[in-house]
């Protein structure tokens, strides 16, 4: 798939990697476009992980600031923009969690920032025709299809920012059990997405 459309004048028509090429060239409008596309996801992720609106705002701003400052380190040939951005935001959240030294019990339901499965499906209708909404629908369905213990392990690992050892301690399970649950959970999600026709190129 050709992803660079340098001659498209409307930046909203450019794909992420083409916008990043413009960011690399110093075009802050391209960054604004990327912000408008992904800030909601990053903010949602940060809220989920940190359960703190002020910190989540900081994470959003810092993530895109790093995209701007470190755009030259982005390699389109090694992956798409969204995973790169999410990786930056996720790492920042984990750093923040470790700084706090008092991680929130990620497996429990925060009253303001619900866990995945408590999201009302009606929300999907709003963005039903968008790419992100489709991604959201797929990954939620994939997570819903997991056994509870595997989903819990993955949530604690990714959204809770906990190490395997910490997860084992929190769940009072052997660490080997936790490791296996994470692997099996990811494998099942991968298989589910594959069955839904989602390939690597789509991600």
């Amino acid at each position, binding site marked *: 798939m050709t992803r660079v459309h340098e001659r498209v004048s409307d930046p909203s028509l450019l794909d992420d990697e083409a916008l990043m090429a413009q960011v690399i060239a110093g075009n802050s409008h391209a960054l604004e476009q990327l912000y408008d596309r992904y800030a909601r996801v990053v903010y949602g992720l940060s809220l989920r992980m940190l359960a703190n609106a002020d910190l989540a705002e900081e994470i959003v701003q810092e993530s895109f600031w790093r995209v701007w400052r470190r755009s030259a380190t982005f390699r389109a040939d090694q992956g798409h923009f969204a995973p790169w951005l999410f990786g930056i935001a996720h790492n920042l959240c984990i750093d923040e969690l470790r700084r706090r030294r008092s991680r929130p019990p990620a497996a429990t339901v925060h009253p303001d920032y619900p866990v995945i499965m408590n999201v009302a499906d009606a929300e999907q209708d709003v963005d039903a025709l968008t790419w992100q909404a489709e991604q959201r629908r797929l990954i939620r369905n994939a997570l819903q299809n997991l056994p509870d213990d595997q989903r819990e392990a993955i949530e604690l690992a990714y959204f809770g920012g906990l190490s395997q050892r910490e997860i084992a301690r929190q769940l009072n399970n052997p660490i080997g059990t936790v490791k296996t649950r994470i*692997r099996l959970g*990811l494998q099942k*999600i991968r298989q589910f997405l594959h069955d839904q026709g989602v390939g690597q190129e789509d991600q």
Partner: protein
Amino acid sequence: MNHVDDQHSRNQVAAYAPGTLEAEEMLFVTEHLAQVAESQVELQAFQDVVALLPYAVPPVEPPLRTRQQLLARIAASQSSTEPSTPTAQPASPAPRQQGGWRSFLPAFVMALLLLLPLGVLIRSQQVRLAELTQVNTELQSELVQARADLTQVQQALVAMNAEQRAIETQLQETLQEVNTLMQLFSEERFVLTFITAPGVATRELTAVDTTINADGAMYMRPGQREAVVLFRGLQPLAPGMVYRFWLANEQDEIAVGTVTVESDGLARLTITAPDAVNVFSQVMLTLEPATGGNDPGGRVILEGSL
């Protein structure tokens, strides 16, 4: 790689994707990935899955101020790296040129038209260069930190390896002890089975004088070469000495084994005679130098008749 190792590696590669490994585990997995292309492919598949996880969270519109602050920050960074003076300034006309400046106007305009984009381009590149320099500085700082972390991890790894070696050594020792105990158990079981079997005859071994407070019993089956002899009350041996057990008849005296005495004075000996045990008429236990030969030359401790 066996099944357990393989499963462990696959678990660790999977855990690498959501970033749930601790520092020393990361080191192991990184080394593993460098060696196993198959695991690299598997990791990429897991990372593709993990890249979708943020979508699972309900998206939330951040406050408008977040966007405004970000853009202001970017604008400030751009302006802070702009040159303080314009890139291109019109030169002041020299007095001697005042009379004919109109003749140079087209050339001047042309030069301006050429220089302005060039100046803009240079300024843009200067800004980019400053940003990249800043990024480079930040990355170098992170690199220093990463190296420090790596050093700590390596130190922890060395300590873990030493600990692992100690545990392995201890495990080997324990295994040896278990093997010894198993062997002992097997021997004890054989002895017990032998002496309680139907048809077993018992012969007593008594001390040759009253200063010896020991005795023994020999369990044998007539017509068979195997026999078991149990002792009690034997004194601990001096260095270089052994208790040696003999079978004898009128022609021969045959050493059939040495006896190891336990701390409580008990001992047992399983023998296989060169002929059926009932061919022999006497048995005896002597105290001999360990280097003793085929003839009994030491002190007789116990004796008995068959």
